[in-house]
């Protein structure tokens, strides 16, 4: 008996630990922010956090079929980088960029989905994503040229910004290809640029005119290197050497190649959820969950008495485990996902109910409550299993075929059904094992009764 009680006590300690983890890792509830392991707030979908979703169709008609996968991969990379680099999206750490390969259900379209939590201005989002990285080759400013001077409203004289370099007319639009290469002599990583025909001519002219000077290479308005021109370059090739390592060289190559997107994209769907709307939905979901829990708990305790109390304890442990899973997995919670979880609260007590009812029958057929409990757990198993299999099948198929919204519902529903089974059979059983029923007198009969009846024990002769 004491061994069982210690096990039951340990389960409670672990459950409280899980509950505390859920509490403390949620800054909005505990008011604490953590780093490392405890930095695990719930991941909310766009409908709860507010934000923007953009769905693009990629035009892969000009790409060889075997290259589509890689090209879509680089497209995702470029867009991710653009979002990360964009100053407008500072703080959007949770942006998600997904590609979806062509398949039967989407009508053989390659798609790209971008989710930007917290961003509400679609036009801005579209402009950042659709922007092209600008590559410019600039030449040194003619030193004889006058510096523009303006007189400000306050009467001060402003010297125009002295730009060391001026535009040469050569930019990324003339680029044919960029490759990461190694310098033949030094062995250092470099990036070589191949111009198209027009670009080659322009580049030759520019280099001819600027022998002995530097040419600055600008990327998105920032100078990345300013190599010296030693002679006119006619082969249509330029090499950017700088003090970069292999990784940086590859990144630069990508940026240059992707100045244009590797695959042209077209916006097909947009969705925008205001932050307030998301917050209202989140609050409503939490409120419904809490009320649902209390309602089920009251019902279970009033109807099933002591076993009901244990079922509620069970349910609380189930909730703690599920919430911890949501955080650790991590599961993106949407309104539909929360709905799936709330419904699973009701289903989670089903295994307990099946066992209790079975126990009552065993007791009615003659036997002690203890016998009834043991028999209840073992004999109810087939019913418990069968009554959950069909829900699991449905949830699994919904998850496999569904869209993001459906997946979220299916996932919480599936996990909920599965975890509740495990909890009922591993935790509930141990709690019952730890209760002393004494001589199973009137009190025990009352406590183990249900509805309006007490458990009647037939004394076996």
């Amino acid at each position, binding site marked *: 008996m004491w061994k069982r009680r210690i096990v039951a006590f340990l389960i409670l300690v672990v459950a409280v630990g899980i509950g505390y983890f859920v509490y403390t890792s949620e800054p909005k509830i505990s008011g604490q922010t953590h780093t490392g392991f405890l930095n695990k707030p719930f991941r909310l979908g766009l*409908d709860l956090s507010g934000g923007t979703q953009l769905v693009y169709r990629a035009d892969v008609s000009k790409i060889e079929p075997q290259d589509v996968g890689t090209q879509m991969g680089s497209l995702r990379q470029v867009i991710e980088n653009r979002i990360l680099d964009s100053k407008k999206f500072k703080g959007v750490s949770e942006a998600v960029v997904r590609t979806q390969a062509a398949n039967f259900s*989407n009508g053989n379209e390659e798609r790209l989905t971008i989710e930007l939590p917290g961003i509400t201005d679609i036009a801005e989002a579209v402009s950042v994503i659709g922007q092209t990285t600008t590559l410019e080759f600039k030449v040194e400013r003619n030193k004889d040229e006058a510096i523009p001077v303006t007189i400000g409203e306050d009467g001060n004289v402003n010297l125009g910004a002295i730009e060391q370099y001026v535009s040469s007319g050569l930019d990324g639009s003339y680029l044919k290809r960029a490759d990461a290469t190694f310098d033949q002599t030094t062995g250092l990583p470099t990036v070589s640029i191949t111009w198209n025909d027009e670009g080659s001519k322009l580049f030759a002219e520019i280099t001819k005119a600027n022998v002995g000077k530097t040419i600055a290479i600008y990327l998105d308005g920032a100078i990345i290197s300013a190599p010296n021109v030693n002679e006119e370059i006619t082969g249509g090739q330029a090499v950017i050497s700088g003090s970069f390592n292999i990784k940086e060289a590859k990144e630069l190559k990508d940026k240059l190649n992707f100045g244009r997107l590797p695959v042209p994209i077209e916006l097909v769907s947009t*969705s925008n959820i205001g932050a307030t709307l998301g917050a209202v939905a989140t609050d409503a*979901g939490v409120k419904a969950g809490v009320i649902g829990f209390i*309602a*089920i708990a009251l019902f279970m305790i009033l109807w099933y008495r002591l076993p009901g109390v244990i079922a509620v304890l069970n349910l609380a442990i189930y909730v703690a485990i599920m919430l911890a899973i949501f955080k650790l997995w991590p599961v993106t919670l949407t309104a539909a996902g929360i709905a799936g979880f709330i419904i699973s609260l009701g289903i989670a007590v089903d295994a307990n109910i099946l066992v209790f*009812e079975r126990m009552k029958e065993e007791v009615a057929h003659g036997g002690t409550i203890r016998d009834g409990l043991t028999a209840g757990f073992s004999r109810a198993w087939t019913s418990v299993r069968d*009554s959950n299999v069909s829900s699991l099948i449905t949830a699994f198929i919904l998850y496999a075929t569904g869209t993001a919204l459906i997946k979220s519902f*299916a996932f919480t529903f599936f996990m909920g059904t599965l975890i509740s089974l495990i909890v009922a059979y591993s935790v509930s059983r141990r709690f019952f094992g730890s209760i002393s029923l004494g001589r199973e007198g009137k009190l025990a009969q009352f406590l183990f009764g249900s*509805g309006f009846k007490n458990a009647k024990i037939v004394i076996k002769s």
Partner: protein
Amino acid sequence: MYIIKHKKIFIIVSVFLTLAAILSMVIFGFKPGIDFKGGTSIEVSWQDSSRPEVELLNTTLKSLPDAPEILIQPLGSNSFVLKMHEINPAQREGLSSFISSSYPGMSVVGYTTIGPSVGKELARKSIMSIILVSLGIVIFIAIAFRKVSYPVKSWKYGIVAIGTLLHDVIIPTGIFVALSHFYNIEIDTLFVVSILTILGLSVSDTIVVFDRIRENLRSKNNGNFEETVGKSINEVYQRSIATALSVILALIALAIWGPDSTRLLAIMLTAGMFFGTYSSIFLASPLLVLWQQKANNNKKML
């Protein structure tokens, strides 16, 4: 057993409700939403209670030159969801400023534009999931009832289970279609989810009842088939009702206090859970007994 004795009444009630639901589907019809056909939906909200009446807003919107046809769907007490064919951002801005100039205090809280190709994808995926879930459930029923059991053949349990399942899905769908007619609701992906979840939930309940019938048939000290079924129902109905009640309690909380977007899902599932439990006690077993009696009578006549 009361239920078995009066089985015909319960079967008639179920048949009547199913027919009414089918009638409601025929009369009101299904309106596919922008999820499936593509289009724009805008959620607008008013502060306090200054939201105009649906008819009023409708008339105002019609006065807008080249206004798209707009479906106004009330949401909560302060908001409307406006649904129309796909419009561009400029048109959307125009529309929202037009509404807010006529009915001040309005703000756009969210909007979605679904392209026709994405809509087609959602429709295809929904159809695919409906087919696969139905197939999965039928296979599950076949496996659950593969063992031959005297005096009723296994496949009869399967057929009755599927019939009950149709009953459980058709009635909530009929209710949904009627609701959708009066509240301008269109069919969306969550509707499909709710139908499929009902499939999963309702079949499990029927199977628990049937399992018990077979278990009791195996032990010899029972009376005839009718009595065994009656006894089995007696043994399991408390569990069915207790489980259904706890799920329905959760669903009601979700319907009343939960997010607007899942309200209809919760209502659908409540109806599904209610009729699913009703049917596993009051329909599935009586049908089984009725079928068995008919079969016996035929044998006698031969």
